[in-house]
């Protein structure tokens, strides 16, 4: 088991013939992901190292039976690409595109909610998702993820930041702890998939025994997660929140990482999670060590 994607997930890459799509799509395929097709309007009949390219997501789905899509197209084209995937019946869409205007993200999310409730969007502006040994969609370097073991305990990872996601994977690998699934939800103001969505899946996944969460300043997603954890999560958790020292009113790299009007501070988020029973590390390594303790207690 894993959450959202596994070895049976068939994936198409929207933008496979572009630089990013080609590079990451081929890497994902080399990892063992079932990359069954690509989509670039006007390029049907071509292939990228044996992966067939189609004009539309609809054509690609008909020909390959794909259920997931990896979107690697520029910000101008990404909103339409997401909705095209949803319209074609894709159930899981991963969009790594950085720089989509917030107004577009809000409209896309509202459209998915109203017209395509069966489609889950991960991202935009996220590193993607990896179920080690089974499926890797996005830009994560697969080799830094420790394979889960049949007997466990295995850890699920959910993170708002890309490099800190890798850091978390690496910390667990150093400790020899298996990962069930690692989800990067992205640092934009309107993420398609939230911490809460992932926590609910991890709680229900029998292969996940503990959860690491990596948050950052801005918004209230971590506080909402804390409330959900109090009421619904029984698996042990550790967490790290980046941005304790971030100055107010400045966007720290990610469009969504900003403390404004005294809201969205790291301290507030850490307090909320601590109240929910989550062990808080003051840096990523500490969150990893806390998880190692948790896992040792489970063994």
């Amino acid at each position, binding site marked *: 088991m894993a959450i959202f994607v596994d070895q049976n997930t068939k994936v198409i890459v929207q933008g496979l013939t572009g630089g990013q799509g080609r590079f990451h799509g081929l890497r994902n395929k080399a990892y063992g992901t079932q990359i069954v097709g690509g989509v670039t309007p006007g390029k049907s009949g071509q292939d990228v190292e044996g992966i067939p390219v189609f004009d539309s997501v609809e054509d690609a789905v008909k020909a390959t039976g794909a259920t997931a899509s990896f979107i690697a197209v520029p910000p101008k084209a990404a909103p339409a690409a997401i909705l095209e995937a949803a319209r074609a019946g894709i159930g899981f869409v991963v969009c790594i595109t950085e720089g989509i*205007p917030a107004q577009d993200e809000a409209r896309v999310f509202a459209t998915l909610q109203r017209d395509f409730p069966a489609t889950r969007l991960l991202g935009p502006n996220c590193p993607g998702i990896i179920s080690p040994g089974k499926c890797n969609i996005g830009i994560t370097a697969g080799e830094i993820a420790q394979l889960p073991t049949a007997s466990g305990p295995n850890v699920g990872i959910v993170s708002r930041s890309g490099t800190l996601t890798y850091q978390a994977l690496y910390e667990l690998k150093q400790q020899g702890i298996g990962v069930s699934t690692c989800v990067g939800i992205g640092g934009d103001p309107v993420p398609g998939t939230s911490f809460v969505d992932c926590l609910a899946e991890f709680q229900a996944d029998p292969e996940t025994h503990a959860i690491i969460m990596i948050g950052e300043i801005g918004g209230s997603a971590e506080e909402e997660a804390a409330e959900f954890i109090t009421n619904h999560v029984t698996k042990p958790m550790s967490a790290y929140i980046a941005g304790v020292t971030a100055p107010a009113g400045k966007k720290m*790299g990610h469009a969504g*990482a900003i403390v404004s009007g005294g809201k969205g501070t790291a301290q507030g988020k850490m307090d909320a999670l601590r109240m929910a029973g989550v062990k808080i590390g003051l840096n990523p390594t500490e969150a990893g060590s806390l998880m190692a303790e948790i896992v040792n207690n489970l063994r």
Partner: protein
Amino acid sequence: MDLFEYQGKQYFAKYNIPVSAGGVAHTVDEAVAEAEKAVYPVVVKAQVQVGGRGKAGGIKLATNADEVRLHAGNILGMDIKGHVVKRVWIEHASDIAEEYYASFTLDRAAKQHLLMLSAQGGVEIEDVAAKDPTAIVKLHINPIVGLSLATARQASIDAKIPEKALDGVADMLVKLYECFTKGDCDLAEINPLILKPTGEVHALDAKVSLDSNAAFRHPEWEEYAATEELDAREQLAREKNLQYIGLDGTVGIIANGAGLAMSTLDVVNQVGGSAANFLDIGGGANAEMMTAALEVINSDAKVKSIFINIFGGITRGEEVAKGIVEAVKRVTLRAPIVIRLDGTNAEEGRKILAEAGIPDSQLTSRPTMLEAARAAVALAK
């Protein structure tokens, strides 16, 4: 990107939101010329991106040229909470019967637009919220449904806007919403939104923050970028396409990834130091990016040590190490570097750094983030 009041008013005017006619002045003489055009009495307003201008003496009424001269002279160059006033906005003074508040933002938790409206304007909305939360109407708007005139009118009634101002306020809300959505704002706020004795509703102030991700469809925003207040370091970083925010500490920071960069600031702070900046060189971390980053850090006289924190994911450790060695050759650094290189092929990378022949006084390597932070902070003291 935050706009100055005068830019916000010009932006509002594009969406037919009524604002006072006026002009920008950089000197006392220009201020007088603008005042003559606007017709006395006029208001002289400091243009700074910080609240509390009025209390600081940055907003003054003038009824003749001598008074404009006096006030503009005092306000230009004034320091308001660390912001030096470089320009003033001169507009015809409006008669005010009542003051309201209106704003649109994106509510991230609800993933919908949020209208905030209050019949108590002209004061900080946070103060209204603290004193009497029921005085603020909060209305969520579905981005694919939008805001109708009827809904805007109902919200105005709910906010206890008086009957005589209802039509004007509702019309204003629809226009402000259009400015917020089509104009790609993160925030569009009018405080105060005034009712004149003559019955018109009018925007007396403008607070606009633009979503820089949407710049590609707003070529007109270029003029705003030109007046953005960046310090010399931030200006240099922008020219080099780096994600950089200047801070006040002594440890220069370079990291790959926004989350890791933020985390690096935290760890430096945790071990008793203070960061001179936030700098994300992105996933690439090649010699060009690293050189550019070191040049920016080098331009900061306060920097006493440099902490490079790289996690190799897709970019392998040996490539990062080669980039650093190359960059260190190209830039004459004024402060020593401590590097923490981890992730894919980190050992090969560390070997390259160790064998590059760079003296320890210039570059040392530490295996973990915490140890590297301690070393960098020790060097900065």
